Every structure is written in structure tokens, then in C-alpha cells.
């Protein structure tokens, strides 16, 4: 078997594929953050909590109402999105136009409250969620065993990422959005309801996080704390990609998944640090991020 740096090629191909799968998760999560920051200039520290809420909602809807996976895929992001709109309307709107640090602290506080309340109700061991039957099993690719569900994760995440990018960058609705945040008074003058647009954008951003949560429910432990560690990594991804760059968030997400995957193969103890190492390097040589506009 051919080897690369002492690692069999087959193992390496497997790790690359796993990296892409994890990268798809990062892409989805950092995309939501980038949308919220790029359009609303809010640093959304509640993003991890929204991801967790997406997963928890999926499990609870199944346990108490028998809602299946496919319905949850639409319903959970909707529920969490509406919750996001409520937060925007009652809380974030009050501090609009203030320094970034206010939105950061506010959303961080909201995240801690949500997490604390859910820990009291459900504990931290995790809730059970059985994988839908059609995704059970997998296919042997020769170099690795590929569970069907992981393949679905790539497809679903990339479709949603591309769709979001397309809507924001290429459609009229997207141009209203971008214009509304650029100069809201002018847009108001054109008869566009900017406050509503902002609420919906925040709702959509957190719905993306919740969607990632639904995708995560069958494969990771669903617990109230699942979002807190993910959040920090995803923030690093957004910083590397360039705060607010939609396409940058997607590409960087996948790239970081692959880099992390390779680190797990060659030097596992560094795998939780490698993304931050890249972040430091990027900030040193290209402070606005790989895809960010130069300030």
C-alpha cells in the first residue's frame, strides 16, 4: 500500500472525506454567523445555543409529538428562527447602533441563560435520538466505511450553503438586504420595511444554526452544552474567512474541517488547537481574513 508520511493512502483518503463532512458542519454554522454579522453587525454569541436548540427541538418534538426527522428538518429551524426573531425584537433592537461589544455581551448572556435552564430540565448526559431507518448502515468505499447519513450531511449542508449565498449575493431580495443595512434611511424612503427585514435576517441566521443542529442530532450527543465548545471553533472559522464574508465562511468552513481532519491523523493532540493556530497566522498576515475586504 502506498504511504504518505507514514500514513497509508487509504487511511488518508478516509480522513480527507471525514474532514469535508465536518467542514460542511462548520460551513453551515459559520455561514449563519457571517450572515448575522455581515448584514446586521451583530456578534452573535448565542449561535452555539441556537445550534443546540435546533438539536434539542428535534429530539423533543420526536419524543413528545412523534415528529419525524424530515419534518423536523424544516420545523426545528422554523421554531428556533421564530425564537430568534423574538430575541431580536425584544432585546437586540434596543441596543442597535451601539458598539459591537454590547451585542456580544447580550447574546452571550442569552446563551448562558438558555443553556442553564435546559441543564436544569434535562441534565447533561444527553438525550437519545435514533437515526432514521433509511440512513442506517453505509457503503464500503474501499478505503473506508461511509455511513449513509454522513453522505447526506454533505449534500444537505452544501445545498443550504449554496442556496443562502445565492439568495444574498445574486437576488433582488439579497440586494435589498445589503442595501438596507448599508443605508437604512434611504431604503425606508423607498418604502421597504427595514426593521422587519433585520428581524427576519437574524431569524434566518439562527435558523441556519438550528438546521445544523438537526443534522447533528442523530450523530452527536444531544445535550444543553453541545453548542458552547462548537461556538468558539466556528467563530475562529469566521475570523479566518473574514468577518461577514458569506462565500468566505463557506469555503473556510470546509477548508478548516479538512485541516482539522489531517491533524487528527498526523498529530491528534493538536487537533483542537490547529484552527486557532491558523487563525493567529491569518490575523498576523491578513487581518481582514482570507476573503474579507481590506478595511
Amino acid at each position, binding site marked *: 500500500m502506498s504511504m504518505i508520511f507514514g500514513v497509508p493512502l487509504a487511511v488518508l483518503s478516509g*480522513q480527507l472525506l471525514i474532514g469535508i463532512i465536518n467542514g460542511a458542519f462548520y460551513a453551515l454554522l459559520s455561514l449563519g454567523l457571517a450572515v448575522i454579522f455581515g448584514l446586521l453587525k451583530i456578534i452573535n454569541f448565542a449561535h452555539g445555543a441556537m445550534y443546540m436548540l435546533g438539536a434539542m427541538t428535534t429530539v423533543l418534538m420526536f419524543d413528545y409529538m412523534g415528529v419525524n426527522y424530515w419534518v423536523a428538518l424544516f420545523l426545528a429551524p422554523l421554531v428556533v428562527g421564530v425564537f430568534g426573531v423574538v430575541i431580536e425584537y425584544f432585546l437586540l433592537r434596543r441596543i442597535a447602533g451601539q458598539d459591537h461589544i454590547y451585542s456580544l455581551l447580550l447574546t452571550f448572556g442569552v446563551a448562558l441563560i438558555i443553556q442553564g435552564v435546559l441543564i436544569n430540565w434535562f441534565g447533561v448526559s444527553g438525550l437519545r435520538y435514533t437515526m432514521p431507518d433509511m440512513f442506517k448502515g453505509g457503503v464500503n468505499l474501499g478505503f473506508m466505511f461511509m455511513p449513509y447519513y454522513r453522505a447526506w450531511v454533505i449534500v444537505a449542508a452544501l445545498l443550504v450553503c449554496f442556496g443562502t449565498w445565492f439568495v444574498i449575493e445574486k437576488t433582488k431580495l439579497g440586494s435589498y438586504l445589503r442595501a438596507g443595512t448599508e443605508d437604512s434611511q434611504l431604503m425606508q424612503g423607498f418604502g421597504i420595511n427595514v426593521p422587519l427585514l433585520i428581524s427576519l435576517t437574524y431569524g434566518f441566521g439562527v435558523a441556519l444554526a438550528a438546521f445544523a443542529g438537526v443534522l447533528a442530532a442523530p450523530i452527536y450527543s444531544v445535550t444543553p452544552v453541545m453548542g458552547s465548545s462548537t461556538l468558539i471553533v466556528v467563530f475562529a472559522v469566521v475570523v479566518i474567512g473574514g468577518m461577514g464574508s458569506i462565500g468566505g465562511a463557506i469555503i473556510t468552513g470546509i477548508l478548516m474541517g479538512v485541516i482539522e481532519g489531517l491533524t487528527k491523523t498526523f498529530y*491528534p493532540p493538536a487537533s483542537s488547537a490547529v484552527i486557532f493556530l491558523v487563525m493567529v497566522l491569518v490575523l498576523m498576515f491578513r487581518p481582514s481574513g482570507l476573503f474579507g475586504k481590506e478595511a
Partner: protein
Amino acid sequence: MTMMKKLLTSAVASALMVGGAQAEISDNTIKIGYLADMSGTYRDLAGPNGLKAMEMAIADFGGQVNGTKIEVVSADDRNSPDSASSTVRRWVENENVDLVAGMVASSVSIAVSKILEENDRLGIISGSAASSITNEHCTPNHIHYVYDTYPLANGTASAVVKEGGKTWYMLTADYAFGHALEADVTRVVEANGGEVIGSVRHPFPTQDFSSFILQAQASGADVIGLANAGADTTNAITTASEFGVTQSGQTLAALLLFLTDVHALGAETAQGIQLTTGWYWDMNDETREWSDRFMEETGVRPTMVHAGIYSSTMQYLNAVAATGSDDAQTVRQQMMDTPINDMFAKNGKIRVDGRMVHDMYLAEVKTPEESKNEWDLYKILRTIPAEESYRPLSESKCKLVNN
């Protein structure tokens, strides 16, 4: 010198006992501090329900010892030795706490036991895993009650090797506890004629184990050993099941699993996994009776740690009642002199190094067909006698043991 002083103090104290037992109980209150992770990764295995178990013991004891009232205070250690240390300092220096109990993260227990030794108060550790707590870190002021890494490795690893799992690949949490457990497992595997052919140290905590599982699969080892705990273990097991580890003929060996972990995984995912436990709620009428009461209070079945907290609190209160004293050394000696016979352990003994030795159990997670309800999760395969389970005193590095 200190030993001499302690002897003298207790001699003087005994002389003063003529004045009645209560004279010896400081400020006329038995004050117990319950310290545990109340909100983090290790919350469910001890946490708020452990406090409930302690309160059940106090209520069963009658709420007072020979007319002296029992008071409980509690705190969240947040798995941080620093935070735990400042709490315990306040408790023993300003609030006259006599006993500190609970304690999960091994680093917390080791830090706290040092403070207890400085102030000559008693600690009973129920949640921690590291066997070093009663080995190189032993003190005359604490007791380690429920289990430790030594029997975990002994029970599970030797059983799996004897069933033909000769080659092992270890997934190890990259911190002190994981390294200790990996070392214990390696020792046992090799002693039984097996071999550890590779290992990977993963960061703590890790959510996605797919990459590590893939490496373990590629190793071709008979057994994938999980030297980690809590969410790391459940995530690894879920991923292993998704990637068809057992179907491809490899066995999973989880070295530390609590009932709450297995409950979170469910019988479907966890079936067939062998584990070592210090206690299980559904072993006999006595354990079931207590577990039913616990469930009425909390809504869940107790882990071995919950049961251990109840049992050790009882043992402590009995010792205080018998000696009429809340002095740490007097009570500890009495606890060592009294075998433990209750729903938690039969003929359990607290050794001079502070280790409570009792029978351990090798269990297997039931299949969904065998499991009658969500908490009906273990079959007990074998009782591992106390003397076979724990590190013998002859191998001890504890300063209290004369080797």
C-alpha cells in the same frame, strides 16, 4: 510529630468524654459540605441528585445525631480545583464544616484532600476515578468510596482479553485521568497475554470521533478500548456504532461508563458493551427498594455514585453517633473499624490508605429485546471479589502504608 499531637488530642478528648458525648461535637452541629459538579459535564452522575441522596441518608438517620442537629451546605465545584479549593477553605476555616463529601473530577478531589489534611477535617470522595487518590495522593483525612481506575481496568480489560480480544487499540482522553486509565489497561491486557498495538490521544472534550474511529478500524485490532469518560465516551460509542465497528468484528470496551451514560445512549446503541461498576440499582431487593425511593425523589435511577453517597453518609453518621465525636481522626478510625453492610456494599472495608474496598461487578449492556424499560440496562455477568478488584496494599505508594 503531628501524629503524636493527634494521639494526644484524642487522648485528652477521651478523658474529657466523661462530661457527655455532646461536649466533643464542635459548635454543637454536624456540618456537612456537599461539593460536586452541579452544572457541567459530570453533573448527572453525582450533582444535584447526589445531594438528594445525602439528604435521604440524613432523613433516614433521623435528622440528628444523639440530639445534635445535622446541617448541610452545598456548592458547585465547576470541575475546577481552584474554585473547589476556595470553597473548601471557606467551609473549614470560617464555617466549621466537619465533613466534605461528593467530589467528582479527580483533580478537584486531590486539591481538596490537601486542604482537609492541613485543617484536619474529613473528606469522603464518591465520584472520582483516579486510583492515585489513595495511592501517591493519600492523606489521613480522606476516604475514597465507590470505585477507581484500578478495578475498572482489572474488571473490564481482563474479561475482554479472556474472551479472545488479544489486540487492543486505545482511544484515550488526553489528560491525567485518561493517561492513568490507559496505563492501567495496558498493564492488565499484557498480564493476560494480550497486546496494545496502538493508541490515539484525543483532546478533551471531543465531539466528533469519526476520524479516530476510522484510525482504530484501520489498525485491525480486536478491541477498541475507550479510556475516556462522560460525553467523550458516549460520542465515541455513537460514532463507532454509526461506522459499523461491531459489524466488522471489532469489540468496543468502555472502561468508565455510568448508568446515566448508558441511559443516554440507549440499549439499541450500547448493547453488548461490557463495563465494570461498583453497584447497580437492579441487583437485589435491597438495591431496588432504595432505588425506588430515590426515583420518587429525583425521577431517575441512581448511579453507583448516588448510592455510594447515601451509604458513606450513613457510615459517617453512624461513626459520629458511636464515638460521640466529630473529630476527623476519631471518626475515620471508627469508620475503618466498622465493616460496611448495607444496600451499597456487603462486607466493605475502609483501609488505612482511605480506600473503601468492596466487591465490584462486571456487567454487560442488555439488548433492546432484553431491556424491559429505559433503566433496565445491565446484566451482571460476574461479581469481582473485593480483594481481586483493588490495588493491594503491598503495591501501595501511600505514605500511611508501611511497605
